């Protein structure tokens, strides 16, 4: 599925998402699913905070020496008999992959879920040269059939209901002689298993992502619950790993440090079903495994993020906890964000990768409630990173004329305390007069976006906070 950037129409996307009934049903599952399971899993680990702190320190050390750890990883992969490719842009990464597939005379490719693969639009590029990519993660497979981009980084089809999946399978599985329409979940999973098993068997190349790269051993860590990543890595003749340069860690011990945080933060499991270390092609005497092994290390603006005040974002290991806990994501889902990465982490990464000009609404799609930073296992201060984007948006004059004028006016007033007090005093009196009968205002010019869906409560006593505060202070001093 090609990923067109539609972040510039975020407001419109969000408005449509709010009216989408099946989407709203599907988003309801997030709360009972991810959020509660994560909490239960963390409660069983009293050392959680200490592990989190150590993970942050370790990753900061890696970032301070990222050049060296990448060199070491490259060296170790080569020692295992693998090939390392470097891609400056997502387009370069796509070209490298197409090239390897062409050289391998590939007809079909089995793909494990990879968000970097989405950045590079690997599927579109393969299809353009007549190679068929098959997504093998069930969620990715569902959205590939639906010709949609993923709406969540670890649960790509979280926006789909069972009924929608049933329709999709019924439509697309006829060609395999599976003509009966099935509706229950177990049967849907079994049918996908049957169809995809054949695809695995026939795939010439397997493409997967990686959760971590271990510099010490040249292996990468890949976690899945379905086992599709392992089948994609073990069965085809050629295995390609596509991964961002920030995923490297020094040693196996550092990988296990992050693994303790990853599954618990992502799905509330203490460990993912399949946690695999892989590296290099088949060894002497091995009966299975790929004959060729390639890693594509992707920059795609990561070095720009590195050399900016957003560097901390490179600690992110894509668990999705911030997304699951974001009230904005919970209301509008992932597609509204308009590119590969949704939610808080997406609102930081997307502007950096595709440009703030096209994504200026994303840093504002946030209530600054701080839950994302609270749950982030890598302690990334997401709200302050979003505020940095907001500042840049203002400095580069990317907002609409109307909000710029409003903000400029506001700053003029806010910098003059006396004027500010007089005006707010006037505003409070006017509001209380307007709401004198019902205690609230139903319609107000200029803020219709607020009053359209709720009433604006008004103060009953004609006083601003400051005058109330001063009055109380005077009272307590005189008593």
């Amino acid at each position, binding site marked *: 599925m090609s990923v067109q950037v539609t972040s510039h129409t975020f407001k419109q996307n969000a408005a449509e998402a709010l009216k989408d009934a099946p989407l709203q049903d599907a988003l309801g599952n997030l709360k009972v699913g991810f959020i509660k399971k994560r909490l239960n899993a963390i409660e069983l680990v009293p050392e959680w905070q200490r*592990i989190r702190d150590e993970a942050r320190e370790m990753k900061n050390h890696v970032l301070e020496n990222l050049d060296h750890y*990448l060199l070491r990883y490259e060296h170790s992969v080569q020692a295992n008999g693998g090939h390392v490719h470097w891609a400056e842009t997502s387009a370069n990464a796509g070209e490298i992959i197409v090239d390897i597939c062409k050289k391998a005379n590939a007809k079909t490719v089995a793909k494990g879920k990879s968000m970097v693969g989405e950045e590079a639009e690997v599927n579109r590029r393969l299809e353009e040269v007549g190679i068929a990519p098959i997504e093998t993660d069930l969620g990715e497979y569902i959205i590939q059939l639906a010709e949609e981009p993923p709406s969540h980084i670890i649960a790509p089809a979280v926006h789909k209901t069972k009924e929608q999946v049933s329709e999709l399978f019924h439509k697309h599985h006829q060609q395999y002689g599976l003509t009966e329409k099935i509706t229950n979940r177990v049967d849907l999973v079994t049918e996908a298993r049957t169809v995809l*098993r054949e695809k695995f068997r026939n795939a010439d190349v397997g493409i997967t992502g990686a959760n971590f790269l271990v510099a010490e051993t040249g*292996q990468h860590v890949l976690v899945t619950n379905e086992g599709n990543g392992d089948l994609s890595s073990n069965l085809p003749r050629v295995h390609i790993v596509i991964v961002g340069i920030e995923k490297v860690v020094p040693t196996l011990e550092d990988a296990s440090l992050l693994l303790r945080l990853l599954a618990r933060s992502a799905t509330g*499991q*203490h460990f993912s*079903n399949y946690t695999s270390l892989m590296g290099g092609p088949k060894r002497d005497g091995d*009966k*299975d495994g790929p004959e060729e092994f390639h890693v594509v290390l992707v920059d795609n603006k990561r070095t720009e993020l590195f050399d900016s005040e957003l560097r901390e974002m490179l600690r992110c290991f894509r668990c999705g906890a911030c997304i699951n806990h974001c009230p904005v994501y919970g209301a509008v889902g992932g597609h509204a964000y308009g590119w590969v990465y949704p939610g808080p982490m997406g609102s930081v990464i997307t502007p950096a990768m595709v440009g703030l000009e096209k994504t200026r609404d994303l840093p504002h799609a946030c209530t600054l409630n701080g839950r994302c930073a609270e749950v982030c296992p890598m302690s990334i201060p997401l709200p302050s990173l979003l505020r940095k984007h907001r500042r840049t948006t203002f400095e580069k004059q990317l907002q609409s004329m109307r909000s710029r004028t409003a903000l400029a006016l506001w700053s003029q007033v806010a910098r003059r305390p006396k004027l500010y007090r007089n005006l707010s005093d006037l505003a409070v009196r006017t509001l209380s007069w307007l709401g004198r009968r019902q205690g609230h205002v139903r319609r107000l010019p200029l803020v219709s976006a607020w009053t359209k869906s709720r009433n604006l409560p008004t103060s009953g006593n004609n006083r601003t906070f400051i005058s109330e505060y001063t009055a109380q202070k005077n009272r307590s001093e005189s008593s």
Partner: protein
Amino acid sequence: MSARDAILGRLQTALVRENPSRPAPMSVDDAPLAVSERLSTKPVSTLPAFSEDPTERLIRMMESVQMTVTRVQTSDDVLNAVDDYIRSEGLDGDVTVAPALSEIAWPEHYRIGSASGTEATSVTPCLAAVAETGSVVFASTGDTPATLNFLPDNHIVVVNESQVLRHVDDVWTQLREACGAHRAVNFVTGPSRTGDIEQTIEIGAHGPRRMHVVLVSGA
């Protein structure tokens, strides 16, 4: 300039600007002290503590992710335990045994080798089992092909109690002592599952639907 040099160059430009005394070599041999030290000392981070007996915890953790466990006294009991399980669960179809277990006198219709893709059940040894996570760990070799862990519907694993380790990090020590980088090291923690349809967990996505452990006490 190659993409490699451009990427590493951009990282180094930023790092040298922050710390002008930082060397910026392009060779793996010139790593700063902090890097070479971390790579050689391999510091272990905080491990989740537990007071439970490791074997008991292993079994409890395995059962919590829908694995089943049978305990037997000696390695002579493995054959019967495997056969009993296959019969009692009514597992039809072929059985493939990893070459590493070929010294056991398996029934004649059991095949020894790597996965053919058509067998219903595989029987394999493991490298270790981890009490922390309830995982069995497999390291791929010619005698323990990785595909046996993923293709069959049912996977029976023989675990010797002496292979039970406390934490994931103990596996790293063991791997380094063994022979370095295997092509694949798989931690498997329960039968294959997916939550991709409405966030509800279903067993049997792509890998085995059943995982059964025969735990040998005296070994």
